[in-house]
């Protein structure tokens, strides 16, 4: 029996929110296609996490819990996914379009001699077949494609798909997968610990971004402060990253990340075509810029024309006040 396999991803001691979103889309498409859905949870000490899926309508869970996975890089996970796919005769495998999900999708593509669909933002069933939409050119263009091979491998963009909230009693099946030494050729030699886990721009519901108008790295504490108060991730324009003010991990745009948060706040960002491509699918866009002609205002739902160094402190004040309500 064919089915859809959902590959879950965990962060520290819990499953990532995006995994519930991916499961939700798999359940909806599975219903239309008449296919069962199973989720795969893998790692070390992840048994308890698997139970969380019960709230999200997933009734079948494959579990691989092995100590060797504690510091493992991508290769062993690809083998586990392949084993689970064989177990359920999966015709579809859905992953998160996270860095790891994309890496694994490439491994699986080579293994099954097909292309994976990266960063899908919409899926529907037409004439009994799955049709996939995904942005290309960093969102300047939307591609609609029909898969011609099986299995269909797709990674789904975070923050786009809705989880299915429904309580079930899942059947959990532990898979026995032999992970041979050759799968551990890439080793983690060092991990620098950071004092505070940063929210990733790819998964954040709110992003506060700064650009050239911030005039220097010393002023980004304003961006960080507002982001903290809103529970947001901090982002940056290419200009701010190329100037060395911010790390590339924060860059939004064609040579950075393409994001779709609920709220995107652009501060001192003029709105180059590459930046707009990367954030235009945000649900609500706010722009603060002193130039009323800045292209960012053409995509912003709400704009304030003004000096970021005056407006940002006022926004921080307002965010503090609204936090108290």
């Amino acid at each position, binding site marked *: 029996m064919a089915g859809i396999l959902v590959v879950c991803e965990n962060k520290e001691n819990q499953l990532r929110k995006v995994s519930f979103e991916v499961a939700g889309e798999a359940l909806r498409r599975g219903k239309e296609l008449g296919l069962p859905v199973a989720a795969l949870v893998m790692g070390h000490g992840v048994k308890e996490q698997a139970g969380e899926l019960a709230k999200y309508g997933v009734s079948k869970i494959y579990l691989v819990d092995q100590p060797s996975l504690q510091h493992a890089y991508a290769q062993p996970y690809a083998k586990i996914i392949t084993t689970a796919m064989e177990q359920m005769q999966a015709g579809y495998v859905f992953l998160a379009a996270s860095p790891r999900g994309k890496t694994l999708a490439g491994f699986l593509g080579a293994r099954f001699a097909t292309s994976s669909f990266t960063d899908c933002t919409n899926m529907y069933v037409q004439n009994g077949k799955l049709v996939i939409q995904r942005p290309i050119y960093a969102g300047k263009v939307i591609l609609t494609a029909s898969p011609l091979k099986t299995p269909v491998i797709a990674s789904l963009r975070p923050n786009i798909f809705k989880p299915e909230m429904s309580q079930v009693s899942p059947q959990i099946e532990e898979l026995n997968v032999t992970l041979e030494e050759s799968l551990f050729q890439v080793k983690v030699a060092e991990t*620098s610990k950071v004092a505070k886990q940063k929210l990733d721009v790819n998964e954040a519901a709110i992003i506060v971004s700064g650009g050239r108008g911030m005039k220097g790295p010393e002023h980004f504490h304003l961006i960080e402060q507002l982001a903290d108060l809103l529970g947001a991730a901090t982002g940056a324009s290419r200009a701010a990253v190329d100037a060395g003010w911010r790390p590339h991990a924060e860059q939004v745009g064609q*040579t950075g990340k393409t994001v779709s948060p609920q709220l995107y706040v652009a501060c001192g960002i003029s709105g180059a075509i590459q930046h707009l491509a990367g954030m235009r699918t945000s649900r609500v866009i706010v722009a603060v810029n002193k130039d009323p002609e800045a292209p960012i205002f053409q995509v912003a739902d709400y704009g304030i024309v003004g000096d970021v160094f005056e407006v940002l402190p006022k926004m921080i004040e307002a965010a503090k006040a609204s936090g108290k309500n």
Partner: protein
Amino acid sequence: MKIVVCVKRVPDTATKIKIAADAKAIDAKDVGYITSPYDEYAVENALQIKDKNANVEVVVVSSGPADTESVLRNCLAMGADRGILLESKGDLSDPFVIASALSKSVADEKPDLLLFGIKAVDDDNAQVGGMLATMLQMPFIDGAISCAISDKTIKAKTEAEGGHQILQAAMPCAVALNKGDVEPRIASLINVRKARQKEIKKVVATLPAPSFQVEKLELPPARKGGKIVGKGVDAVPELFRLLREEAKVL
């Protein structure tokens, strides 16, 4: 030792993309082409390894239409030693097709180190590196911001949620480069001239069947023109009211 770097010709990121009349491809008229920016990080990283170590050969490989040669010449001008152009007219938006096209020529080179950009900025697939590494049975490190060799080992630095991780593997190994630690060099005029004399081997690529059918390409829906809430600090309370009550995002 030998480093092979896979590069792709892509439309300039400053290009305003238009869709062709049949809605199956982009309108190639008025499009200027560049080396995909992430691939330049890979070339630069290869050249830095070459600068620091004796007897390193850097070979650049690309699959694409005949004028992809200009992208290879750019890499040769940066300092790569020679190029291989896999001429193909087919659709190069299908990552399995691209990885397959590259696989034989790259395997024949027997690279110690195989580098890619983390993704090509046209189709944003980010898949060819992992696929080709798997096909050639090489360990693969994705999204490194820089890598260096010592003895027979590659050490790659990656960004991991607010911190860094150093991953290591024995060579031969494949690594996909992200932006971060290396700044691609600009070729001098002398090197641009020298690059004209460097060898580019041309091979006709055979492509496997596509993995998907393009139904259509379209521009994303235009965002409705927003409103200017106001000027300066006085507009902030109204902005927060709108975000709370109208947009309901706070």
